[in-house]
């Protein structure tokens, strides 16, 4: 087994008396997709926010490529090699699809405070953005305003923007949410291709996608991990069956 690129140990987040995430330990390995599932309110998005630095944890640690990044700002964690997408589409609506991706790629160019060169001429950033645009299959939408793109395209754009920052670790928060069947299939294909170069955490409700993609499965309920392991094992777990997979998701 390759080394873990991202490790969380005993991660806890309390909002007042409520522990939204309670003592969660998990690892993300290169070339593996780690799916996190659980009912609404289980703490999956909070967990994602703790890992990306959007929220500081109450206790516990996060290490990224061997470096402690606990409670670091999101921009520092991003620059340390983590890219994430959001459950609620979080893009630059008035900008074109291309400018959304290009801006993401620009974050990795040095000397970003240059004021007298054109941003459109940053060769390295353009190449990175072009790759991400292509991977996400958005070439045809390149010059469209992002706010006018379809829901599915906006979801693809979310992922493309995360990719354009050249991350080693990808956290994808429900990338398939609200997608049609054809779009969802495309996205599953994309994620399989991305697996080769990334360590990936996938928060997802679509069970077909989860079982098609996941190498490792963690189930959360009420902020706690109730099962974690190979998807087949977890599926057979009695606690999981009764708590979550039971009627509504697998019936």
């Amino acid at each position, binding site marked *: 087994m390759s080394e873990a690129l991202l490790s969380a140990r005993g991660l806890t987040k309390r909002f007042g008396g409520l522990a939204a995430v309670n003592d969660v330990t998990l690892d993300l390995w290169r070339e593996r997709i780690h799916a996190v599932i659980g009912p609404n309110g289980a703490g999956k998005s909070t967990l994602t926010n703790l890992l*990306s630095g*959007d929220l500081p944890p109450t206790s516990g640690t996060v290490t990224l490529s061997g470096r402690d990044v606990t409670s670091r*700002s*999101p*921009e520092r964690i*991003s*620059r340390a090699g983590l890219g*994430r997408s*959001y459950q609620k589409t*979080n*893009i*630059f*609506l*008035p*900008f*074109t699809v291309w*400018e959304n991706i*290009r*801006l*993401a790629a*620009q*974050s*990795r*160019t040095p000397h*970003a*405070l*240059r*004021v*007298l*060169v*054109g*941003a*459109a001429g*940053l060769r390295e950033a353009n190449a990175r953005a072009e790759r991400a645009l292509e991977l996400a299959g958005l070439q045809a939408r390149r010059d469209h*305003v992002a706010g006018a793109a379809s829901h599915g395209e906006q979801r693809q754009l979310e992922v493309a*923007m995360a990719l354009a*920052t050249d991350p080693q670790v990808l956290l994808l928060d429900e990338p398939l949410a609200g997608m049609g069947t054809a779009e969802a299939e495309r996205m599953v294909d994309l994620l399989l291709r991305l697996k080769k170069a990334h360590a990936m955490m996938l928060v997802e409700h679509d069970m077909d996608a989860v079982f098609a993609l996941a190498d490792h499965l963690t189930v959360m309920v009420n902020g706690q991990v109730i099962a974690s392991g190979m998807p087949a094992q977890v599926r057979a777990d009695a606690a999981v069956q009764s708590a979550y997979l039971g009627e509504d998701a697998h019936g």
Partner: protein
Amino acid sequence: MSTAKANLETLPLGLRIALAIGLLALAAFPFVGTDFYTQMVARMMILAIFAMSLDLIQGVTGLVSLGHAAFFGLAGYALAFASPQDTPVSLWWSLPLAAAASGLAALVIGFFVVRTHGIYFIMVTMAFAQMVFFLFFDNKVLGGSDGIYINFKPQAGLFDLEDKRVFYWFTLAVLVLVYLFLRRLLFSPFGRALAGIRVNEHRMRAMGFGTFGYKLAAFTLAGALAGLAGYLWGAQTGFVNPELMGFQMSAHAIMMVILGGMGNFAGAIVGAFAFEYLLHVFKDVPTIGTFDGGKHWQLWMGLFIVLVVTFAPRGLLGVLERLLRRKDKA
């Protein structure tokens, strides 16, 4: 490129031609205008530089500052302190010094204020500006409420700023340079990052942009450019007082930027000219019965701005763009 429609970042050809004609008209104006009007238009140009500096943080970055006049006034005071009683001061070191003083003040104040967001940013910028205002207002050493006279215009050597036309053209040159610089900046990596912060700062941080540094740099640069304008103001009027740093001055600049159209710098220029022109028109509104229409010019100005914001959210520049486009089609 980005198509932040509301901001009209990319100026269509028609607008660019209109702006070029406007520039030619400005350059030729001193040949036809009287001294009085030449001075008045120079004053409008100074305010246009001030409005552009505010547009960098307000229209581009999305930070509404109610204290921007502090940096405008500080540079005027810097000129006043640098000028001896009986001889002119050299333009070549006093101008950079004044802009640097304003930039430094903006850096220090910015360090505290750009951490805040939305309504808090508005309040904190206003609070800092009021502190600067009263620092000068209450201190005799700093001129107090009466202000300070600047007896001579700065000396340039190559040209004579005491000549009203020369001063006018010098101001025009500064206006054009600041405009070209800011337009260039708008499409640089730095400018694109500032626009990204306006639209979605949260995502910018998630993508690795240290937005605090970007905002602080923009705030500092805007302060230094406001300083350029304030220096010219002090040089032209030969007098500075705390009013220059006051709340009203800051509010007027915000109105100029909104009136003209935000985020493209051309709008700020148009807005500054329109605001100053309308100010004169509205001050001449006659008295009807016991109601002095001219004294209450702010009433008419307020109404006009409400109309523009309601019916032309892209400002006067947006209106002009629409008119030109319609003519194209006809």
